[in-house]
Structure formats: structure tokens, C-alpha cells
């Protein structure tokens, strides 16, 4: 639940209104200037953008473009090199310099610290690079299935706790190519209102009817399910062919865990299929890193389709789908990402296999368990300290994703640039990835952050937070507690 101070809500609306008004005035003058200096060698061609479409990009995003898309010059470990850029025309174009600054990395999804060179994974990945070459140069059905791919699928299925799994070369494609295969016209997809763009794209591409339920609210999900089952398909009112409910394990913009046990109970009651997207939670939460199901005590046999990606916790690329043997067999016959897209690169596959072995402790050390304990401690420590300082931090305990609310559009570049000046790199997110009012800075904690790194980050964020004015909640009065204790004595 996000609690905004009322005055902040008013000022945020006003700021966006002002930015919008200025953008419209500039557009009007641009149209006027173009009409005057009419160089009409594009007579008869249709316009690329229809009027309003690129307004947000041109007038709002480009003004603060230097806060997004910063190039880096090293592996995204706990500390990395950020390339400095400058602009001569007020941020419309940015030019790279050859200077780099060493910054603390609070933005990469490096949950278990596999992003940089690892003593177990990297030699094996290099070996497989020499043996199998960087690309298989073929799709899975032609010549792109190596022993690594089969081993990887078995490894993933065993790790997640399902009978079988199928692996794809890209995480986004996993959602957008699987949903059209599983659902078609006459089916119903009920998805959480804050689901990731890949799910939204896949659902739209499938041709099924889409209904949205309020974020993480099982009672509203039940209401929507009852309404839809009673109503049937639109216009014909025939019963739905199948119904699927799509939720995510950890929502990347909120850091919240999904209310999985209640949602599974409701889906079983109304006989709907469940699809769990564990992009951010696989490998990062749970006692042995097996994701939200382990953390919340849900039996994996109750979730019909489990999806995840390898980019976040395993330091690689690609995505997987885990389910029953029949489901995976069907996907292997029909999914276009399996039939036509190039298979996952062999060194990436080897990296995933090695990192899963480290997490499970099968490499002979207990580094995996150490990493899992460290990320849990780091996240809880960081979150409690930020809340004590008076920031508004979202997300549940144990979740390594921490959005700090900024709200006002002007605070987004202020926070981002000031932190970069103090050598802390944060990622800020604004409209339209988040709702208009709720711009935030998203912090991702990694197992490779040491306690000193976190304390430095907390100092910098506290100083910048005071400068920018985002400590919306009162700080915890430590001195008051001490005074009360003195009074009792």
C-alpha cells in the first residue's frame, strides 16, 4: 500500500501539468516554424508518427535522457565503471567521453553475485565456449540441440521441482511466444494489473480475451472469475475454452511478493490454470533459492506453468518454462521460439548449469547457501535502515528489490544525477513504466555487496534524500526512546 502525502500528490499533478503545457507550447511553435519554412520534399508520404504518439518521448523523456541508458565499461559486479557523457544541445543527443567513473552498482539484477567472474562458473563457461563455440547457429529442431541443452533442461526441471522444462534463448520471448501457443481465441486470460510488458504483449498477441484484476488482491480476482465464468464469452455467452490466471513471483516495480497461496486456492476452486512468472524470484528467495513457491510453502504441483528467466540470479541469458511432461512436449511441437529461433548460446547454458550447481551446493562448497543467506541479510538490513531514515520504501521483507518513492517528476533527474556525482549508480523509473504519480528509484541488492558497500550507499542516499526532499515519512526518533528509558529509571 503506497501512502502519498496529500500535498505531494497535488504538487506532482501540477508539475506534470506544467511539463505537459510547456511541451504543447513547444510543439505548437514547432508546427508554426515548420509551416513557415516549408521544405516539402516529403509531399504525399504518410507521417511516421500520428500526432500525439511520440509526445512523451520528445518533450518529457529527452529532457532527462542522461539519467537513462548509461553505458558501462566493465562487468556489472558490486562496483562497476560508468562511462561519462556530455551533451551540447540540452540532452537531445549525448556523446560519450573516454572517462569512466567507478560507481557502486545498485541497479543491476545481480541477486546472487554471478554477474562478474566466479571461480566455479567462469572456467567452465570458457571451456564450453572453446568446445561448442559462442552460437549454435541453428534453431533447436535443426542442429541447435547440444548435450548442454538437454542437461540444462533436466537441471532446470529438477531445480524448480517440476517433471520437465524447456529453455529459450531470451527471457522476453519466453512470455510473448508461449502465451499465444497456450491460449487462443475463445480463451480467457486474467492477469494482474501490474504484470510485465512481455506478459501483456504475449496476451495481446494470443487473441484471447484479457481481463485485469487489481494488483495482488485475491478477493477481486475471485470477483472477476465469477463474473467471467457466469457471463461466458463476449456476445455468444458460450463457456470459455480455458481460463488462465497470470501472476508474477516478485513484481519488479514494487518489490512485493505475490499472495500465492490464496490465489492458488481460488484458481483451484474455479478450475482455472495458473501461470507463475518467477523472473525476479527464482534463485533469489526461498531457503534453497527455489523461488516464491518454496518461500510461501506452495506445492509446485499446484502451479500449472512455471516460467522464469536466467538473467537475474544466474548471471546468464534466456528463459525457461517448467510444467508437466505433456505440456513441455506440446510446446516443443508448437512454440515458434523453439522451432524457429536460435537456441540458447552454449556458454550461457553452461553458466546456468554451473550456477545452479553452486546454489544447490553440488560444487562441493557451501558458497550457494552463503550467497542466499547474504542476500537475505543484505536486503533486510538495507530496507530497515532506509525505513528508519524516513524514506518511503515499497516491497516485502526478504525481497531484494527496493523501490524508493520519488513522486515529483523533477526529483527523478535530481536524485539520479546527484547520486552519480557521489559515485552511486541508481536506476530511476518514471511514467509510463509506472503510474503517473508514482515515479521511483529502484534499488536491487546483490549478494556481492559487502556491509561497507551498503553503509556507504545508505550515507549517500540519506544525504541526497535530504537535498532532494524525499523523506516523506518521519524518521524513527531514537533519542525519544532513550529519553523514555531514562525517565523510567
Amino acid at each position, binding site marked *: 500500500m503506497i501512502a*502519498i502525502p496529500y500535498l505531494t*500528490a*497535488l504538487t506532482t*499533478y501540477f508539475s506534470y501539468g506544467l511539463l505537459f503545457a510547456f511541451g504543447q507550447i513547444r510543439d505548437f511553435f514547432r508546427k508554426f516554424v515548420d509551416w513557415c519554412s516549408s521544405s516539402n520534399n516529403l509531399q504525399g508520404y504518410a507521417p511516421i508518427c*500520428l*500526432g*500525439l*504518439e*511520440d509526445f512523451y518521448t520528445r518533450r518529457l523523456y529527452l529532457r532527462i535522457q542522461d539519467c537513462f541508458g548509461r553505458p558501462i565499461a566493465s562487468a556489472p559486479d558490486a562496483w562497476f565503471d560508468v562511462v561519462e557523457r556530455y551533451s551540447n544541445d540540452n540532452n537531445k543527443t549525448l556523446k560519450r567521453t573516454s572517462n569512466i567513473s567507478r560507481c557502486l552498482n545498485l541497479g543491476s539484477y545481480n541477486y546472487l553475485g554471478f554477474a562478474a567472474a566466479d571461480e566455479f562458473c567462469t572456467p567452465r563457461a570458457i571451456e564450453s565456449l572453446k568446445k561448442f563455440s559462442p552460437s549454435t547457429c541453428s534453431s533447436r529442431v535443426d542442429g541447435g540441440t547440444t548435450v548442454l541443452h538437454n542437461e540444462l533442461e533436466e537441471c532446470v526441471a529438477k531445480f524448480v521441482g517440476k517433471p520437465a522444462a524447456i529453455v529459450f534463448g531470451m527471457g522476453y520471448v519466453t512470455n510473448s511466444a508461449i502465451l499465444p501457443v497456450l491460449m487462443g481465441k475463445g480463451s480467457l486470460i486474467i492477469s494482474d494489473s501490474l504484470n510485465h510488458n512481455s506478459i501483456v504483449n504475449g496476451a495481446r498477441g494470443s487473441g484471447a480475451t484479457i481481463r485485469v484484476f487489481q494488483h495482488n488482491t485475491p478477493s477481486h480476482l475471485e470477483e472477476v472469475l465469477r463474473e467471467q465464468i457466469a457471463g461466458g464469452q463476449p456476445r455468444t455467452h458460450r463457456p470459455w475454452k480455458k481460463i488462465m490466471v497470470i501472476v508474477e513471483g516478485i513484481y519488479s516495480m514494487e518489490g512485493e511478493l505475490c499472495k500465492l497461496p490464496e490465489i492458488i486456492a481460488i484458481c483451484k476452486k474455479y478450475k482455472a490454470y495458473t501461470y507463475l512468472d518467477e523472473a525476479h524470484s527464482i534463485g533469489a528467495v526461498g531457503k534453497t533459492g527455489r523461488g516464491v513457491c518454496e518461500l510461501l510453502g506452495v506445492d509446485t504441483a499446484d502451479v500449472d506453468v512455471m516460467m522464469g528467466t536466467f538473467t537475474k540470479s544466474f548471471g546468464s541469458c534466456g528463459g525457461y518454462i517448467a510444467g508437466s511432461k505433456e505440456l513441455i512436449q506440446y510446446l516443443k511441437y508448437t512454440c515458434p521460439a523453439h522451432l524457429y529461433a536460435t537456441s540458447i548460446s552454449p556458454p550461457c547454458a553452461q553458466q546456468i548449469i554451473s550456477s545452479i550447481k553452486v546454489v544447490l551446493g553440488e560444487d562441493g562448497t557451501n558458497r550457494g547457501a552463503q550467497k542466499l543467506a547474504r542476500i537475505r541479510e543484505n536486503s533486510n538490513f538495507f530496507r530497515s535502515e532506509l525505513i528508519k531514515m524516513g524514506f518511503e520504501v515499497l516491497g516485502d521483507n526478504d525481497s531484494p528489490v527496493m523501490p524508493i518513492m520519488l513522486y515529483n517528476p523533477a526529483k527523478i533527474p535530481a536524485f539520479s544525477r546527484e547520486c552519480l556525482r557521489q559515485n552511486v549508480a541508481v536506476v530511476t523509473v518514471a511514467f509510463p513504466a509506472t503510474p503517473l504519480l508514482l515515479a521511483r528509484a529502484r534499488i536491487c541488492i546483490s549478494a556481492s555487496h559487502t556491509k561497507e558497500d551498503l553503509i556507504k550507499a545508505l550515507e549517500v542516499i540519506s544525504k541526497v534524500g535530504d537535498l532532494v526532499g524525499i523523506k516523506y515519512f518521519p524518521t524513527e526518533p531514537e533519542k525519544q526512546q532513550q529519553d523514555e528509558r531514562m525517565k523510567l529509571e
Partner: protein
Amino acid sequence: MANYYVKAVPPADLNRNTEWFMYPGVWTTYILILFFSWLIVLSIFGCSPGMAWTIVNLSHFLVTYHFFHWKKGTPFAEDQGIYNGLTWWEQMDNGKQLTRNRKFLTVVPVVLYLIASHTTDYQHPMLFLNTVAVLVLVIAKFPNMHKVRIFGINADK
């Protein structure tokens, strides 16, 4: 005032263009903007309060007609143009009519008209202009006018 918090529950609306209107504080901001623009008009033009309200009413008419009922589509390309034939008013609340937000937005021009005509003592020509403004705005917001394009004005090509 600084310690008064409101809960921001994200509504189940996929259209990012209209979803921002369902958060708390929008109505207050709208009314405050109208009030402060009246003060600014008074200070710039130095005219009578009634004339200032008429100016605010007419510019409110122009601005809201242009953005709510003329401009179609969304200001970003992410939704791949599924709303390209709908104005902002038609996209609001997913096309559901007579919701609280729609009722509020219909009442505001009427209240502005009452204030403007009262403070100008119902004199012409201000009364005529104000009446035209309020009639056009209120008729454009009727549920029966959903997706109606009179004489093909502003229709899709």
C-alpha cells in the same frame, strides 16, 4: 497538512493515458488550478472579477475541448495504437459511462458557467459566449455522444 497521507491504490486500468485520473488529489488539483488561473488573470489584465471569470471559463472551454474531445490517441507509443480512434474522454474509465470521475468533469463547466454569469451580472456579450461554451462542453460529455462524430468532423481517415 504535511502529515496527511492518502492511500494510492493502483486501479485495474491498463490504459496509462487515463489511469492517472483515478488517483486521489486530482479533483483538488483541478479546482486549485482553476482558482489560481483566475487570480493570475485578475493580476495580469486588471479587469473586473466577472470579466476574469469569463476569460477563465472560455480558456477552460478551449483547453478542455481540445484535449478531452479533439485530440485522439495516447502520447506514447507503447500501447501500439489501440486507442488511436478514441478521444481522451472516450478512453476514460475504459469506456464506462456515468462514473464518478465523469460526473465530476461534467459538473465543473456548469459551476464555472454559474460563477461567470453571476459575477458579470448576466450581461451580453459575455453571457452568450459563456452559454455557448457550457452547452458545447456538456453535450460533448453526454453518454449518447460516445464515439459519435457529427458530420464526420474529427473522424478517422
